[in-house]
């Protein structure tokens, strides 16, 4: 068992294992220090940060849907400065591999945020949230335009040596072209998927169930779409793809990796089971041993479509 190598590489960054806590689903990480040893995770993507504090949307902010949930948190957050002062020291002390998810209203904000984070101690990578469907100014305008994506990644590239990971939205016709634009602009990896723009209405009151009217769909419901998108992106780019969307078991982690992911993130499932991480690691290890696969990274992109292509 001990011989199994669970480490994965995301550009210059080596993660202890492929499991990353997804942004917005793990607070700032420190909230979970009581239930999980943060150094045992491959990484912790913290809640999306703007330059300044944000209130977020009024409640209701979430609603459960079949095998999924909608959220419209609206990126409530303490801003990058308070994050560095109040949260990063504890994350550092707990030896978490910190991936900071950042959001801007303008290209300059992304640049400014990246510059600030590059100077902070204990940041392993920057995830560029250009895909939040819940707020107009959350970079979705960048995330839905190939030029926008290219521009924001290039601009950030100029100011930081930290690995940059644009987080892609699934709400586009051809997500692989966005992965390609990211790669061309110098990204170290891409992560996907963010949530699907969606909506639920209370038929008794005829009001949207979320105060923001629309929200983002996550959870097992979206997994088959996300797996397909990871598969598409993996074939389109050479940089690593970090996959997510509905992962709730070791089987799901493996499915994403086989489809093309080098690492994965887990969001919604962590809400239902904050102790999920060791279960996932055990399941992955069991699988690798049973199949005599020495390194988890050997799985990436090994989906066997050959026999089928023959039809």
């Amino acid at each position, binding site marked *: 068992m001990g011989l199994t190598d669970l480490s994965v590489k995301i550009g210059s960054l080596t993660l202890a294992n492929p499991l990353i806590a997804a942004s*917005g*689903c*793990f*607070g700032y990480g420190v*909230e*979970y220090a*009581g*239930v999980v040893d943060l150094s045992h995770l491959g990484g912790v993507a913290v*809640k999306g940060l703007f330059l300044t504090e944000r*209130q*977020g949307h009024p*409640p*209701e*902010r*979430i*609603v*459960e849907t*079949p*095998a*999924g*949930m909608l*959220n419209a*948190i609206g990126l*409530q957050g303490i801003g990058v400065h308070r994050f560095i002062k109040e949260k990063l020291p504890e994350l550092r002390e707990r030896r978490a591999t910190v991936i900071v998810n950042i959001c801007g209203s303008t290209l300059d904000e992304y640049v400014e945020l990246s510059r600030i984070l590059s100077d902070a101690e204990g940041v392993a990578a920057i995830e560029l949230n250009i895909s939040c469907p819940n707020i107009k100014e959350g970079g979705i305008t960048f995330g839905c335009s190939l030029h926008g994506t290219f521009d924001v990644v290039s601009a950030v590239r100029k100011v930081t040596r930290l690995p940059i990971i644009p987080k892609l939205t699934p709400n586009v016709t051809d997500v692989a072209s966005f992965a390609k634009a990211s790669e061309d602009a110098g990204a170290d990896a891409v992560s996907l998927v963010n949530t699907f723009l969606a909506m639920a209405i209370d038929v008794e009151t005829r009001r949207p169930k979320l105060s923001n009217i629309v929200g983002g769909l996550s*959870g*097992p419901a979206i997994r088959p779409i996300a797996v397909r998108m990871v598969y598409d992106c993996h074939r389109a780019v050479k940089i690593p793809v970090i996959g997510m969307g509905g992962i709730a078991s070791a089987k799901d982690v493996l499915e994403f990796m086989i489809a093309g992911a080098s690492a994965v993130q887990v969001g*919604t499932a*962590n*809400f*239902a*089971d*904050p*102790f999920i991480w060791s279960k996932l690691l055990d399941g992955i290890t069991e699988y690798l041993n049973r199949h005599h696969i020495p390194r988890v990274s050997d799985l990436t992109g090994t989906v066997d479509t050959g026999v089928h292509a023959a039809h």
Partner: protein
Amino acid sequence: MPVDVEARVISNTRLSPDYNVIALAAPEIARAAAPGQFVMVKPAQASAPLLRRPFSVFEVLRTNGRIEGLTLLSKRIGTTTNLLFNAAVGDVISCLGPLGRPFDLIDPPAEAWMVAGGVGLAPFATLAEALQSRGINVTLIYGARTSRELFYLDWFRTRGVRVLLATEDGSSGDRGRVTVPLERELQAASDRNVMVYACGPEPMLEAVAHLASRYGRPSQVSVERVMGCGLGGCYSCVIPVRNDNGGQHYVRSCIAGPVFSGEEIVWD
């Protein structure tokens, strides 16, 4: 440190067509829980719902002094509460807790008035016990739509809790809301040192908090917001509280609460 227990159902008692008390073998949680804390539960076999749901710890179960588990008082309103209503002995319910900020306990000679609306009774069994063990005089002011939805009255009375009732249809106690007896008591007790504890629907909490502060009494209210995680991870459960500078901001009621001072909260 919350733990997750795959808790077997020890018993499940229906109190009415909508209310039940379910006993769960989760001694680890029962031992650690303070009054006002909650657990996040999910029936283990069911694939839906996806997310856990928050429930106050109702009773701590003891056999010969040994803690065996806890009970939940549940009111049927949707998927999970239906599953809890229909759960059979031996079924497994995943139970994560204890979570959240408990009630602040007071010291004598102050007395405690616990104001409960409907299923808002849940946190007050353990609170009453904790307060009484400190020698506090405890009153329960308890309201529901009708007398058929008032439960556990004997439980409280035999423990020496003074019980005042209100029903909307007048079938027990005062006709009307729980604020009717509360206000009468506040008027009568102007010389006594009272902490008002409240749990129930938010409009009730707002009314109670306002009444308490109008009569110069502190209050602690336990709010019920939709919770995705119970651990501070999702930011779904926020409630607006007052800033030092007169503004307001959202705090996560799962970790900053569910118990807040009534004065802290910015009511709608």
